[in-house]
C-alpha cells in the first residue's frame, strides 16, 4: 500500500509539472495553431538560467526564480520577434519546423555553455520527508505540486477574467473574426509565447530540483506530448487534467512493470502506448474540439 501511495504521489507531482508544460503547449497551439517543438528546450534553458543565477551570483533562490521568469519573457519575445513574426502567413508546417530549429539552437547553446554533465541543483526545498499519516513525502514534491497549482490557478484566472485573456480566447475561437474586430494578432501571439515560456521555465526549475539538471531535461517536451494529446490539443483544462493522469500512469506502470517484468524504464514508455491508443479511438482527446482539423 505504501508502495502504491508513494508511486501515486510521485506521479501526481511529476504530473503537475507535466500539466503546466502542457498548458504552455496548448496555449501556443490555441493562439497560433503551431505545435511548439521547442517546449522542452525552453524548460531546460529555464532551469539552467536559474541555476546559473543562483550559483554565480549567490542570489537567494527566490531572486533567481524571478530573474529566470524575466529572462524567459525576454527570450520568448525575442523568438517571437526574430523568428515567428517573420513567418506570419507561412504554412503552419514551416513554422513548426522553425520551432524544431529553435529547440536545436537552444540545446546547442546549453551544451556549449554548460556542457552535458549532470549538475546537481542546489538544495532549495527541504528534502526531508513530511509525514502525511499514511505515507511520507519529500517536501520538495509538495512544494513543486503547490507551485504548479498556484501558477495554473493564476493563468486560469487570467484567461477567464482579464481582457487580454479573453482576447486570447477570441483569437483562438476565430482568428479572422478577432482581427477584423480590432485585435492585434501579433501582440496576442507574443503574449502566448511569453506565458508559455514562463510556465516552461517554472516547470524546468521544479523538474531540475527533483531530478538534477542535464540537457536531457529537454526530453520533458516529448514526454508531455501524451498528456497534450490525451487532453485534446486545444483544451487547457484537458491539458491540466491529462498531465496528472499521465504522470500517475507513468509512475504506476514504471513501478509495477519493473517488479513484474524485471525491466526498468518501462514507465516513460507507457504514456506513449496511451498516446497511440488515443489517436486510434479518439483523436480529439478527452476534451478537444470535434472539428480540430477544419478551418
Amino acid at each position, binding site marked *: 500500500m505504501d508502495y502504491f501511495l508513494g508511486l501515486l504521489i510521485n506521479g501526481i507531482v511529476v504530473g503537475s509539472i507535466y500539466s503546466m508544460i502542457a498548458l504552455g503547449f496548448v496555449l501556443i497551439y490555441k493562439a497560433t495553431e503551431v505545435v511548439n517543438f521547442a517546449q522542452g528546450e525552453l524548460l531546460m534553458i529555464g532551469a539552467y538560467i536559474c541555476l546559473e543565477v543562483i550559483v554565480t551570483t549567490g542570489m537567494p533562490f527566490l531572486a533567481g526564480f524571478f530573474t529566470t521568469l524575466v529572462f524567459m519573457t525576454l527570450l520568448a519575445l525575442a523568438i517571437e520577434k526574430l523568428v515567428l513574426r517573420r513567418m506570419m502567413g507561412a504554412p503552419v508546417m514551416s513554422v513548426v519546423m522553425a520551432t524544431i530549429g529553435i529547440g536545436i539552437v537552444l540545446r546547442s547553446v546549453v551544451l556549449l555553455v554548460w556542457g552535458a554533465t549532470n549538475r546537481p541543483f542546489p538544495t532549495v526545498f527541504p528534502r526531508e520527508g513530511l509525514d502525511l499519516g499514511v505515507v511520507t513525502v519529500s517536501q520538495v514534491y509538495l512544494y513543486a505540486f503547490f507551485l504548479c497549482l498556484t501558477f495554473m490557478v493564476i493563468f486560469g484566472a487570467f484567461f477567464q*477574467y482579464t*481582457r*487580454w485573456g*479573453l*482576447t486570447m*480566447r*477570441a483569437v483562438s*475561437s*476565430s482568428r*479572422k*473574426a478577432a*482581427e*477584423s*474586430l*480590432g*485585435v*492585434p*494578432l*501579433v501582440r496576442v501571439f507574443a503574449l502566448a509565447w511569453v506565458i508559455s515560456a514562463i510556465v516552461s521555465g517554472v516547470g524546468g526549475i521544479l523538474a531540475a530540483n527533483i531530478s538534477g539538471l542535464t540537457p536531457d531535461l529537454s526530453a520533458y517536451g516529448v514526454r508531455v506530448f501524451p498528456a497534450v494529446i490525451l487532453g485534446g490539443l486545444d483544451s487547457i483544462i484537458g491539458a491540466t487534467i491529462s498531465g496528472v493522469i499521465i504522470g500517475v500512469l507513468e509512475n504506476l506502470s514504471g513501478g509495477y512493470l519493473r517488479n513484474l517484468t524485471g525491466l526498468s524504464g518501462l514507465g516513460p514508455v507507457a504514456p506513449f502506448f496511451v498516446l497511440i491508443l488515443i489517436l486510434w479511438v479518439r483523436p480529439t482527446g478527452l476534451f478537444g474540439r470535434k472539428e480540430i482539423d477544419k478551418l
Partner: protein
Amino acid sequence: MSSSVPILELAELSLRFGGIKALQAVSIGVAAGRIHSIIGPNGAGKSTVLNCISGMYRPQGAIRFDGQDLLRRRPHERPLLGIARTFQNIALFREESVLDNVMAGGHHRLKSGILRGALYWTRFGCREEERRLRDEAVEAIELLGIGELGERPVSDLPFGDQKRVELARAMVSRPKLLLLDEPMAGMNDSEKAELAQVVRKLNREKHITVVIIEHDVGVVRRISDTVTVLDFGKKIAEGGPEEVMKDPAVRKAYLGEEEP
C-alpha cells in the same frame, strides 16, 4: 450624386499567388454613400479585392480610404478607421451566444479597452458602456429579424442566420464602410429581398458606404448604385447596373453567354 468623391480608392492593385495572377492592375473608386457591387464568375478575384481592403493580403498598388493609406495599416486597425466586414465562410465565435458575438463588434470603441478589451464575455467593469453596447446589439439583431435568437450559441444556427449575425456584428462597429462578402449565400429569395432591404436601409439612413460581393443578379440590380465586373483578376466593366448587365463582355464572362 455623380459628383460624389470616392471614399475608397483602389489604384492598380496587382496580386499573385505563386503563378496565378489573382489581380491584375485593378482600379476601383467607391463613391461615398453608395452601394457598390463587385460581381464576376468564381475565381475572378472578388474576395481577393475585399481581403486586400481589409488588410489580409498585401497587394501592389495603392488603397486609399478616407485620406488614409490603407496598405500601411495593420488589419486590426480597420475597425478604428471605420471599416467593417463580413466573411464569405463566416468567422464567428462559435461557442458564444448571438448577442455576445454581435457585441464583439463594438469592442474596438469601448473606452476602457481600445485595441485591448474583449469585455464582451464578462460581466465586469464599464457596466454602463456595456449596457449601451448591448442595446445597440439587440437593435441590430432585431433589424435583421433574428431578435429572438439572442441567447442561442451561434454554432446552433443555420448558415443564413449566421450570416445575419456577422452583418449585425459589423453594424455594431458603426462603420463608414461596410464590406460584405456574399452576405445572402444560403438564403431563399424572400430572405434575400429582406436582407437587401436592410442593406439599403443602412446605406440610406446611416450613410454607410457598402461594397458588396453578390452572385444574385436580381439583387445586384435592385440595390447597386455602381457595379464593377471582374473576370480572371481583371476589371472588365464598370457602371450602373443596367448598363453593365447589357455589356457584351459581361454577358460573355459572367453569364456564360455568347454574343447575343
